[in-house]
């Protein structure tokens, strides 16, 4: 221990000096780097603000072009790249700025930056260069992005796919479709870019419906929902409601509801008894979206489904059909399944039947026995909290009469415990 103590005493001054040296060096680096970063941020901020100001100035186009050219020439290459990441979406001024910058500093340099694969720390240069070239409408951009979309670094791939999703060029769409089918990137992200693609893509997406991979069929079915006027799509989607993969059946019925509500109802009815719960739930939603109370009788049995989410979907579908579904729901107020009774009462509450019944009956001196019976059933199926909520909803002048009526039904809510 004495040796350790001696060693400690001997090493301490050196250690402290080394630590002070390291701390000082790191502090100087941080200060210099921080200062440079702040200055760069100011340049970027001012450049973007100037581009916006020139665009909003209302000056003659030639003057704007001249001013933007001067601005681009005043920046060095790296500052141009930094600015490219902060520029707003494509606008005429941004395009002129990008063109001027690439002309002034040499297009080749930016193309080289956009195509070269470097260390992950330099990803921003490649992404910025790609963005700048996209801003200026570089004619050979799509192949460059295609190359980036094949990169091993997911950050580069993500940036490339995002840019491809905004280029109105079928080759860009092909790369996106290839990326989706080849599972090169998160499918939901690629699907998002395809879903918001500026050109219609039914021809590119159609082959996905017949892919052997159920996941790809699913995305094909989901993405095609946008193209309701594509010839033969309705038939294809209808056929896919019988697909062996439940995920595809679910997507097919949801897409069909967007393409043709009436056709979706016909295809959805058999799916209400599908063995997979989420197919049943989507079938109920598809019928609900048609908003036709004629089909309430098909949906109502699902209020007693064994799966909770199907019951919820059934409730939502029935609510979408409007107040006319009340007669279908009345028998469910006496259902043996508690949840079916609860569900029916909740739908009657949400479509306004409960409120209008109670207000109307409270306003009359001699309420109709049939309506009173129905009120009693709804209140019994809905429970104390439903009557309490009802009392809370009715306006103040009517409240005493409603309370009286509820009391006469044996449903006095005041002070009732849960």
């Amino acid at each position, binding site marked *: *221990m*004495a040796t*350790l*103590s001696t060693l*400690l*005493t001997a090493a*301490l*001054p050196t*250690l*402290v000096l080394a*630590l*002070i040296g*390291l*701390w000082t060096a*790191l*502090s100087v680096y*941080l*200060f210099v*780097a*921080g*200062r440079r*970063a*702040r200055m760069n*941020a100011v340049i970027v901020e001012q450049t973007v603000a100037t581009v916006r100001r020139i665009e909003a100035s209302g000056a003659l186009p030639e003057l704007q072009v001249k001013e933007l050219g001067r601005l681009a020439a005043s920046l060095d290459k790296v500052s141009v790249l930094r600015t490219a*990441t902060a520029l707003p979406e494509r606008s005429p001024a941004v395009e002129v700025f990008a063109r001027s910058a690439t002309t002034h500093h040499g297009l080749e340099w930016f193309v080289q930056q956009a195509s070269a694969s470097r*260390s*992950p*720390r*330099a*990803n921003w240069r490649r*992404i*910025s260069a790609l963005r700048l070239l996209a801003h200026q409408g570089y004619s050979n951009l799509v192949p460059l992005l295609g190359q980036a979309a094949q990169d091993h670094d997911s*950050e580069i791939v*993500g*940036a490339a796919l*995002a840019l491809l*999703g905004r280029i109105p060029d079928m080759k860009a769409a092909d790369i996106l479709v290839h990326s989706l089918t080849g599972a090169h990137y*998160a499918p*939901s*992200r690629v*699907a*998002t*870019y395809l*879903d*918001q693609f500026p050109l219609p893509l039914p021809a590119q997406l159609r082959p996905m419906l017949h892919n052997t991979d159920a996941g790809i069929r699913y995305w094909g079915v*989901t993405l095609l929902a946008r193209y309701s006027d594509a010839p033969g799509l309705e038939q294809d989607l209808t056929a896919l409601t019988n697909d062996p993969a439940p995920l595809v059946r679910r997507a097919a019925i949801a897409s069909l509801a967007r393409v043709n509500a009436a056709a979706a109802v016909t295809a959805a009815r058999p799916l209400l008894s599908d063995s997979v719960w989420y197919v049943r739930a989507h079938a109920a939603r598809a019928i609900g979206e048609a908003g036709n109370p004629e089909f309430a009788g098909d949906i109502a049995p699902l209020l007693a489904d064994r799966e*909770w989410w199907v019951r*919820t979907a059934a409730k939502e579908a029935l609510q979408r059909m409007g107040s006319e579904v009340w007669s279908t729901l009345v028998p469910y107020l006496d259902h043996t399944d508690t*949840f079916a009774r609860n*569900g029916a*009462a*909740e739908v009657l*509450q949400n479509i306004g039947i409960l409120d209008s019944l109670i207000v109307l009956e409270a306003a009359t001196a001699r309420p109709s026995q049939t309506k009173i019976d129905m009120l009693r059933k709804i209140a019994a199926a809905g429970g104390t*909290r*439903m009557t*309490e*909520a009802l009392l*809370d*909803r009715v306006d103040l002048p009517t409240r005493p009469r409603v309370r009286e009526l509820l009391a006469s039904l044996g449903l006095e809510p005041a002070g009732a415990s*849960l």
Partner: protein
Amino acid sequence: MTGSPLSTAVTVAVVYLLIAYALGGPFVLLQLIVRAVSRRRNRYRSVPDDVLASSRFTIPVSVVMPTFGVSVSDAVHQLLLLNYPEFEVIIINNGAADALEELRERFSLNACEVFYRRTLPTPPVRAIFRSTSDPRLLVIDCPGHTRGDALNVGVNLARYRYICCADKDARYTPEALLVAMRAAMDDPATVVGVTTSLAALDSDPTAGLAGQSTASALRSLSNLRGLLARNSQRRLGLSLDVKPGFTLWRRDVVVEAGGFSTDVSPERLEMTVRAHRQLLRTRVPYQILHVTEPVGAPRQEPTLAQLIAERQQRHQAMARILWRYRGMLFNPRYGRIGTVNLPQYLFAAVIVPWLELACLLALPFAVVAGVLSPLNLFLVIAAVGFGNGILLNTAMLLAPWPPDDRSQLRLLALGPFEVFVWRPVQLYSRLLGLARLVTSARGDAAA
């Protein structure tokens, strides 16, 4: 006195202090430099959030926020302004009439009955209200006692697959939910949880320092240290921040785990460890991720007393969690989490505070015991200070740059002193937490 047990103990204490404090900074710096070779420059990442924000494929989320009887209408309004395609906001009021009335007035709440499945046991729901001005808002009046109770009510009523636990004391950015959900959206099949952080104040851990007091600057430095800790929490996905950002969970995982804990606060820590245990047992591939990008900032700067109380509660919770899940410790069945990460936490949460205290108390005796001369004692203190300065400078490499030269100079200059001001406060709260845990355990045993 050289060679006596006292001098041996004091020498060991001094060596420990030098290793932990003085050499800790350079060690973390070295680690960071090694990692930096393959690290991305996040600051230049360009993600088209506008596309995700308007996409129909963006996964819907149920945002749940307990109120605890205080006015939250501004916080609710802010949640409703989140830039996200499909979400609902479920507010759990714990029975406070004033807070409920304020919400009713501001959001035109209508009482209604909603039948839901009580998948998790909760206190009885007193009333349910839906907003007529914004149907995405549901307010539940339920006299629960803990945040876990309130969150479980939210889980029962949630319609969507992901549950986002929000905090009334946080001010979230409009993009917060997108930032948090981005990780889950890339792989919803395996991402079961996402934890996020809040920045200190304003937009980042070092922002807003110009014109602030030295105490605030020291606190910001302490938050910077948190950035390094967060970096090492990635595997466990734990969010050890005093005030967390959003914490997102896949609903099925919460339900299968039996809901949020009602006896350990903060419940997010307990849920993280429990989810790990359950998913590792079932051998299902999963990920619990921690997103380092801040999703907001605290509504107001906590007072020193609040900070101590919160830190103390957190350390107490961590110790309690480690005790509850002690079966996972050093258990190869739980892979790296059981054999490395949790033991690491055990060491940091239970052993390190006492070790630190003992070493700090031993320091004044170093001169008496003849281990150090007064000059060497000064050198030890200087080494500890500058070692900590290096650690904080390393953390600054991970944080956004301070807003101006003056703020940065102040942060750099205060770095070596932070250890003597803020660190003892942290140590005090940690020890207090452990002491209270032991006292309460004894009380429980006696009862």
